[in-house]
């Protein structure tokens, strides 16, 4: 409502500003340009979007305070999801870690907790993420490499040994077999005497972005969506404090998307999950408050801050208007952030500490609920303990020394931030509309549309780096002669053998009749329509392995076929 009571800038004022800007342009800018041309013909954001020389109220002339910005903890949540934000509680400093065996990862977790980490984040190795045991032929060379190997409940017991599961919140980066790992977590807690309603944490459980960008899928779309809605339903009854999904733009951005694509494609995935759950008969307000998001933080500070604000506002509108959610918690977009792995350089790795600092600021100024900061050496190998500590200290310095946490959404009202917030929201919405036209996210993925859009952006970015129109310090400018970095973390190559031996012992020791019986019960459940979660929980308790459980599901559900559109 132009001229309405909430319009931030009144029309007379805007008119005058326009005039004066025109004068300034004539009198000052043109003169300056004639003497010193600007550094570049076009200035663009990290995503390649245009950036104006100057932003004024003119660029946000129709801004309505209540509709567009509002107050923290209130619809449309542009300024944040909590009323006091970091004045109440800082974000969760959650460092993603895990490698080799459960024993070694357990040590790293205890170290992180001692250093002040406030949440655990478990990295699994690739065989675990794809539902293979360590003794599967495809697991060869991969066991324990990018995360910890989990074959059975036994590994999970070791992983969380001495860590009270009613006290910590645990995030597990697990997708296709998320139901199995969650079942194991519930079973470990039960052994510690912690009932499932006390458990706090997150499973990533976002299969659509696996198809789009990350690649650790197992099953085809329909059964995968069923597993996800089964988890929604099970957790709403038995694990009510658990975040049942972390709808992830992180990997979409890592694959090369722009900021607006990150928001658009991630929210389109979110819409698909909500649709699926509603179709499965769930009431939107029973599961939507447990949905959470996961975004990237890149170097373009202003664009990134605008991105988080745009995502919050757009999701709130979608939940309210499209899905008719009534519970405000269903409309509040909570998110975890990880700094951008793809922005790190292998050259002069210490420079990455500075990049991560900027990205940390972006995430915090954008109102993140939790944050993982990457370590300087991650373009080279898994991070060492020293590097992880510096990364964690980066967060702590921003939290306790920078002062940006003392007031909420401090960049609001900046002309450029509000203009960019509008722009990203609009572009993201255009992507969502396009995906709706194609028949929704799963179909758009099947057609390769989303993948192709991301790839186009990634290729443009690469070309900009190669023709030096985009500068990456230390990589295509300011290079130095460097020696090979020393002291990188090396995963013991014997891990695979040890894990295999352990698995063989387990299989000899456990009650194999019972395992078989529960696996067959699971098969029946998969073939039918009922919720498979209770059957998976029963199977893990008798030490059926991850590979066995996923094997049954592979037999019933089949496997996903990648869609490539280059």
């Amino acid at each position, binding site marked *: 409502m132009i001229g309405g009571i909430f319009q931030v800038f009144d029309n007379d004022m805007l008119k005058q500003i326009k005039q004066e800007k025109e004068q300034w342009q004539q009198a000052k800018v043109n003169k300056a340009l004639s003497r010193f041309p600007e550094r570049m013909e076009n200035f663009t954001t990290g995503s390649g979007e245009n950036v104006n020389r100057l932003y004024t109220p003119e660029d946000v002339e129709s801004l309505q305070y209540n509709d567009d910005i509002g107050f923290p903890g209130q619809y449309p949540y542009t300024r944040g999801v909590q009323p006091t934000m970091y004045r109440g509680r800082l974000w969760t400093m959650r460092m993603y870690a895990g490698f080799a065996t459960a024993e070694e990862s357990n040590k790293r977790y205890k170290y992180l907790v001692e250093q002040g980490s406030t949440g655990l984040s478990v990295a699994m190795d690739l065989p675990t*993420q794809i539902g293979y045991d360590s003794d599967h032929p*495809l697991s060869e060379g991969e066991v324990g490499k990018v995360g910890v190997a989990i074959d059975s409940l036994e590994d999970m017991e070791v992983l969380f040994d001495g860590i009270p599961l009613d006290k910590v919140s645990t995030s597990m980066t697990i997708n296709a077999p998320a139901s199995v790992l969650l079942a194991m977590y519930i079973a470990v807690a039960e052994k510690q005497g912690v009932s499932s309603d006390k458990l706090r944490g997150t499973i990533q459980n976002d299969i659509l972005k696996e198809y789009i960008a990350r690649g650790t899928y197992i099953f085809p779309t329909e059964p995968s969506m069923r597993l996800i809605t089964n988890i929604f339903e099970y957790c709403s009854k038995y694990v009510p404090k658990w975040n049942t999904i972390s709808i992830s733009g992180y990997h979409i951005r890592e694959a090369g998307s722009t900021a607006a694509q990150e928001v658009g494609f991630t929210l389109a995935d979110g819409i698909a999950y909500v649709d699926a759950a509603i179709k499965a008969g769930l009431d939107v307000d029973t599961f939507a408050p447990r949905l959470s998001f996961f975004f990237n933080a890149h170097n373009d500070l202003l664009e990134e801050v605008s991105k988080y604000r745009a995502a919050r506002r757009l999701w709130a509108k979608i939940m309210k208007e499209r899905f008719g959610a009534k519970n405000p918690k269903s409309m509040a977009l909570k998110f975890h952030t990880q700094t951008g792995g793809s922005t790190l350089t292998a050259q002069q790795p210490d420079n990455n500490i500075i990049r991560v600092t900027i990205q940390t600021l972006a995430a915090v100024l954008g109102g993140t609920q939790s944050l993982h900061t990457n370590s300087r050496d991650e373009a080279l190998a898994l991070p060492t303990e020293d590097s992880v500590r510096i990364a964690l200290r980066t967060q702590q310095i921003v939290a306790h020394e920078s002062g940006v946490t003392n007031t909420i959404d401090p960049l609001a009202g900046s002309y450029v931030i509000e203009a960019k917030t509008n722009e990203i929201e609009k572009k993201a919405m255009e992507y969502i509309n396009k995906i709706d036209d194609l028949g929704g996210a799963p179909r758009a993925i099947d057609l390769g549309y989303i993948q192709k859009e991301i790839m186009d952006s990634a290729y443009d970015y690469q070309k900009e780096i190669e023709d030096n129109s985009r500068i990456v310090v230390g990589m295509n400018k300011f290079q130095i002669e460097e020696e090979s970095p020393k002291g990188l973390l090396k995963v013991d190559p014997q891990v695979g053998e040890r894990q295999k031996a352990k698995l063989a012992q387990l299989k000899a020791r456990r009650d194999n009749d019972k395992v078989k019986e529960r696996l067959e019960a699971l098969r029946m459940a998969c073939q039918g329509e009922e919720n498979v979660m209770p059957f998976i929980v029963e199977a893990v308790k008798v030490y059926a392995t991850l590979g066995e459980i996923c094997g049954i599901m592979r037999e019933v559900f089949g496997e996903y076929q990648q869609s*490539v559109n280059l």
Partner: protein
Amino acid sequence: MDRPIRVLVSKPGLDGHDRGAKVIARALRDAGMEVIYTGLRQTPQQIVAAAIQEDVDVVAMSILSGAHNHLFPKVMELLNEQGADDVLVIGGGVIPDEDIPGLKKAGIAEIFTPGTTTGTTIDFIRKNVKRVQ
């Protein structure tokens, strides 16, 4: 006659990060090469079978999971078994410098680590393709 260089671009192992593989596939195409793209989760056996059937000049593999020491030499071994030693094999990804000599010894012609331009890779292929063009 002037024929395009044929390159198999493949992702061995289980990691799903195919941005690098796809960017290089596009860059090679734009440099006039025929790229056969195999997608994710390829075993060394599948890679070699595809390389043979497609009669490629180059096999280019990308891996970010850390399984390179296991998988790259395996591909070399299988190619040699098939007598396909005239195929140029290159690799890329997050590969520590200290692993590179071992991989080269196994027959991988070059390893491209993060930050390598596509131009560098293209030049390398053009200069080192073993088969007569």
